[in-house]
């Protein structure tokens, strides 16, 4: 009954009710996106590091400070390490594997990027999750293609292809990686020596990926790498630290955004409260009549309180739906804003987040409806006799 009385209000003031609901919907959509992004981003970055398979990245001193993120996604930078440092790195106790990489990226006229990585078989020890058909580059000109590269170019194992960006150089597809939903899907792996020839960087590397025997000893090993002979020439970047500092940065931004979203929610709640206050003053006589007919304080309270819950409930469902359907667009927009974004989708649509948003909105409704409902319930039945106005 109470629900009937408040549900019918939608027919009386559809525009006003819809505007209040829209306010709640937008605030909830923002909240949902922010929460979904938080989880998604964290999982995405962690996934990316897992795919990389390394605990420590060695990059040349003086290269861009965000070399790590570039290394994760593929890029060129004009600083190099001497391949000879590798022996010193491998001599450090605690280092299980050190995989040298020479990376180069070309962007063609259409804006498409081709990323080459010259590697040796040490890399296989890091990439436990790889599934490849064919063979790891072993002979001159051998190419191991990421799944996306093979699909986009329609290249097959055994095919000889001319390499984009490398005037006339040709290679033979020796293997293709199964899709991994990571940056690997977009890379072309070659033998290290082939890459050094093509890019005229003999004896040079862009970075080294290091895997430890025991990840718990990270700090020890990092200290030893920094103090070894080649340490002065290298930036020793522990990837979990990178992960934490990226996360910290993103979390700080998220906290700020969360404050803004909270303000938006409060404003939406104030809108709901205001809509109901107006309804209470418009319906003073009706409330008086209901009281005269025997409605208790609590029943009048519930009529308006239920209306606030309905407004916020509908708003929450609409908001979550907006967030859910716009997840792809939100992801694309965030990608354009963030200095580093993982390969996977950053906005994770999941039920716990959805439920939390709906419950949050109901809590908002409870608070927003309290004051108008209380005001309505305090009206005396005698206003039914007194209040004059339009009839019926």
């Amino acid at each position, binding site marked *: *009954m*109470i629900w009937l009385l408040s549900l019918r209000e939608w027919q009386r003031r559809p525009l006003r009710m819809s505007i209040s609901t829209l306010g709640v919907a937008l605030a909830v959509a923002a909240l949902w996106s922010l929460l979904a992004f938080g989880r998604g981003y964290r999982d995405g970055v962690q996934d990316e590091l897992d795919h990389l398979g390394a605990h420590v990245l060695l990059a040349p001193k003086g290269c861009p400070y965000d070399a790590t993120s570039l290394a994760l996604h593929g890029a060129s930078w004009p600083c190099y390490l001497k391949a000879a440092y590798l022996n010193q790195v491998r001599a450090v106790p605690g280092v299980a594997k050190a995989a040298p990489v020479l990376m180069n990226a070309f962007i063609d006229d259409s804006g498409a990027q081709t990323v080459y990585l010259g590697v040796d078989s040490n890399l296989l020890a890091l990439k436990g999750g790889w599934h490849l058909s064919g063979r790891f580059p072993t002979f001159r000109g051998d190419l191991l293609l990421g799944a996306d590269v093979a699909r986009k170019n329609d290249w097959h194992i055994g095919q000889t292809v001319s390499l984009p960006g490398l005037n006339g150089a040709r290679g033979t597809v020796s293997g293709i990686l199964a899709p991994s939903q990571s940056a690997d899907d977009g890379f072309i792996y070659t033998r290290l020596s082939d890459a050094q020839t093509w890019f005229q960087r003999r004896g040079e590397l862009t970075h080294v990926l290091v895997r430890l025997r025991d990840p718990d000893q990270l700090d020890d090993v990092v200290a030893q790498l920094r103090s070894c002979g080649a340490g002065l020439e290298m930036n020793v970047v522990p990837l979990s630290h990178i992960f934490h500092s990226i996360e910290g940065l993103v979390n700080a931004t998220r906290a700020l955004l969360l404050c803004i979203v909270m303000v938006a929610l409060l404003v939406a709640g104030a809108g709901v409260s205001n809509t109901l206050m107006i309804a209470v003053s418009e319906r003073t*006589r009706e409330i008086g*009549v209901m009281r*005269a*007919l*025997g409605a208790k304080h609590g029943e009048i309270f519930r009529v308006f309180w239920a209306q606030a819950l309905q407004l916020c409930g509908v708003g929450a469902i609409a908001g979550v739906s907006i967030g859910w359907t716009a997840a792809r667009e939100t992801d694309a927009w965030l990608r354009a804003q963030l200095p580093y974004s993982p390969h996977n989708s950053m906005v994770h649509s999941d039920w716990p987040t959805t439920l939390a948003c709906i419950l949050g909105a109901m809590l908002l409704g409870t608070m927003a409806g309290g004051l108008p409902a209380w005001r309505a319930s305090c009206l005396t*039945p005698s206003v*039914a*006799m007194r209040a004059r106005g339009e009839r019926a």
Partner: protein
Amino acid sequence: MACVVFDAKRCDAGAGRTRLKLVGENFPAVSNDIKMETLSFAVEADGLTRIYKRGGEEVRALDGVSFRVRDGEFVSIVGASGSGKTTLLNLLGCMDAADRGTLRLAGHEVGAINERARTRLRRDHIGFVFQHFGLMPTLTVHENVALPGLFGRRIWPSRHQKSLDARADELLERVSLAHRRNHRPHELSGGEMQRVAIARSLLNTPRLLLADEPTGDLDSATGESIIELLQELNRDGLTILVVTHNTALAAIAEHQISLRDGRLIQDSTDQML
């Protein structure tokens, strides 16, 4: 349980009509303090005084008003504008409390009972008819009539709902508006709206009907049909107190009370005061 039975007027008029169950229910105890009494009066007002404070100034809307209304009487309350008629009706309907004086309904002193009990008293035993009809514009005619039956119930009425629907239909039939059951109030004429309001006031089988200028917003012909309906209800045993400027309505009442400046100046059952 402390309870008092109204000395109901016998129903003999309107043969062949649907009989409304207006009598036969016991007045429930509204407070444990109320003692059982034998009643000869439905309403007993003694020195009722209501003072409103407006700014620093006091307005004596009612000043020592005393009268008695027998069970089953048709009473009209007349007086110039501002004489305190609505104020009196508010007190009689337990919608407001007197500053001085006592009011007894069916022997219960209502000044002594709390707000909750008064609400219950209104719901179960007093019907209200307003000049402005007071229908809920968002509910259908049928839902409006059923409205009082929904207060004080559980959230999910279930079984109760069925008998409530039947009762509302019965009342709509009684006021000859069964065919407008699913219409909204704004689709009805003033007279029809007032008939719906009267049907609603009867839902909980009240013993007392209070009407504040029920024909005030109606033309004289429509007003007449409302007067007839009220007369019929009174013949069925309902005690009716009606505030009115309508001379026709005032004339049919067997008992007239006149107010001036908050004082009772004439009570037709007594001699001139």
